[in-house]
């Protein structure tokens, strides 16, 4: 290192460490994702992770075909589907609710979609809170209620319904906005709010908290849909996985076990 002194030794040392890190990451990548065959790529909502992890494990065991689950928020999944990679296209899309599949369909991205489960809006109470017996209790008990914003189906459908029935004006001052339905549920779990309006399927992931099914929330429903994407490089395999998800003995069984009201 003539001419560079001790600083040069540090520079070369850091370059050597960087090369070592690159090698370590490459080895790790090769172990995690063998390059024998491209897996089926499923963009799934993070909230559906328990169901899809079980389904993918079973599917891999039965067919020998690898499934790569890529999780994220539904709106972010939609962005990825809109920006398909030529070398790494997605095969299936499973967002948290049907509204994202509808959006993808309008953009011409969906080859086929099928409903898997239905969800309805319920009130998830913070730990230790007693369920309201009537809608008026929300006001009389001065309850703070978390609700996802309008980008999420629960936020949009709840607002639409309550505006139509004239109840929104009463609820609005008590509403604390959240980005997603799970953010709402987590706010209730931590006691940051007294209750959250969430899907029943989401509420079942919080077994230590009570839920209330208020008549005023009746009719606020959505479906979980799974779509095969047009960009899929292997549509036949994607179709096969979709059938597996819809099979009452396979995919639907896992959804049912996790508390979803499945569509037979």
């Amino acid at each position: 290192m003539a001419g560079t002194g001790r600083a040069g030794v540090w520079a070369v040392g850091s370059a050597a460490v960087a090369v070592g890190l690159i090698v370590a990451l490459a080895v790790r990548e090769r172990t995690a994702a063998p390059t024998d065959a491209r897996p089926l790529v499923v963009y799934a909502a993070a909230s559906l992770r328990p169901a899809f992890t079980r389904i993918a494990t079973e599917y891999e065991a039965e067919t020998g075909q690898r499934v790569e689950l890529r999780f994220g928020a539904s709106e972010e999944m939609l962005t990825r589907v809109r920006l398909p990679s030529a070398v790494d296209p997605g095969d299936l899309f499973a967002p948290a609710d049907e509204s994202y599949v509808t959006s993808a369909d309008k953009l011409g991205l969906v080859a086929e979609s099928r409903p898997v489960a239905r969800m309805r809006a319920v009130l998830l109470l913070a730990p230790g809170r007693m369920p309201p017996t009537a809608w008026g209790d929300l006001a009389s008990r001065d309850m703070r209620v978390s609700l996802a914003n309008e980008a999420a189906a629960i936020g949009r459908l709840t607002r639409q319904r309550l505006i139509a029935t004239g109840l929104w004006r009463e609820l609005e001052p008590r509403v604390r906005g959240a980005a997603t339905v799970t953010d709402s549920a987590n706010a209730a779990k931590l006691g940051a709010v007294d209750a959250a309006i969430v899907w029943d399927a989401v509420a079942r992931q919080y077994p230590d908290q009570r839920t209330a099914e208020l008549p005023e929330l009746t009719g606020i429903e959505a479906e979980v849909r799974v779509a095969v994407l047009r960009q899929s490089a292997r549509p036949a395999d994607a179709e096969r996985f979709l059938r597996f998800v819809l099979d009452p003995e396979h995919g639907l069984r896992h959804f049912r076990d996790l508390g979803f009201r499945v569509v037979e």
Partner: protein
Amino acid sequence: MKSDRPFFVAFAALGGVYVLLVAALLLADLLYLSPSAILAALRDPNIRSAVWLSLLSSSLAAILSVWVAVPLGYLLARTRFPGRGIVEFLVDVPIVLPPLVVGLSLLILFQTAAGRWVQGFVPVTYAVPAVVLAQFVVSAALAVRTVRVTFEQRSGRTEDVARVLGCTRWQAFWRVSVPEARRGILAAGVLAWARAVGEFGPVLVFAGVTRGRTEVLPTAVYLELSVGNVEAAVAIAALMIAASAAVLAIMRRLASRTA
């Protein structure tokens, strides 16, 4: 001579508010934490994989950041060139942009013809290189700022003296400028590493969350929160704090020895 005490009490009170706030955050996490959740997190192969990927990728991103920050920071501090203002603006963009936009921009970049060409050789999106690149883009911007300020604080006179005494520009840089700026360069490395290990938005959008493959600690926290598993999320956050504290302690020790 009047007592200095009121001065120090006032400063300690003002600064102490922030220190107490951070301490309270950690204490609140600690009180929420259950040993069983920590054990479960440690036993989970996906979480262990996320710990390793976080440590390896953020270390690589930090080293690359310093390698970029030293020449760029030096040029911005010591030279005047056409378009300097534009370069300064561009370097600050990753700091100013919302993290999700950084990730989205990277995703769009790799859909262009040039991006696709690169991906023909090395798969980037939704793979480990995407994790490193997402971390690097933001942490390098912070490292450049730090190194630049360090060089600006030095007059450059010793460098000039070295040149008068016969050193070439390279020799003066390596033997005088870099040793003088070593504390700032180390601080830039530490800052870059800390930022990289906590990077979430760009990694989420650009690298996605594939368990055991592109999942890093912040995205592991996000995955647990998304199914209401707050206990596991806090346990992973605790692992993240412990791993970060260990690495930062090693870096500080290294820095004090170098100093």
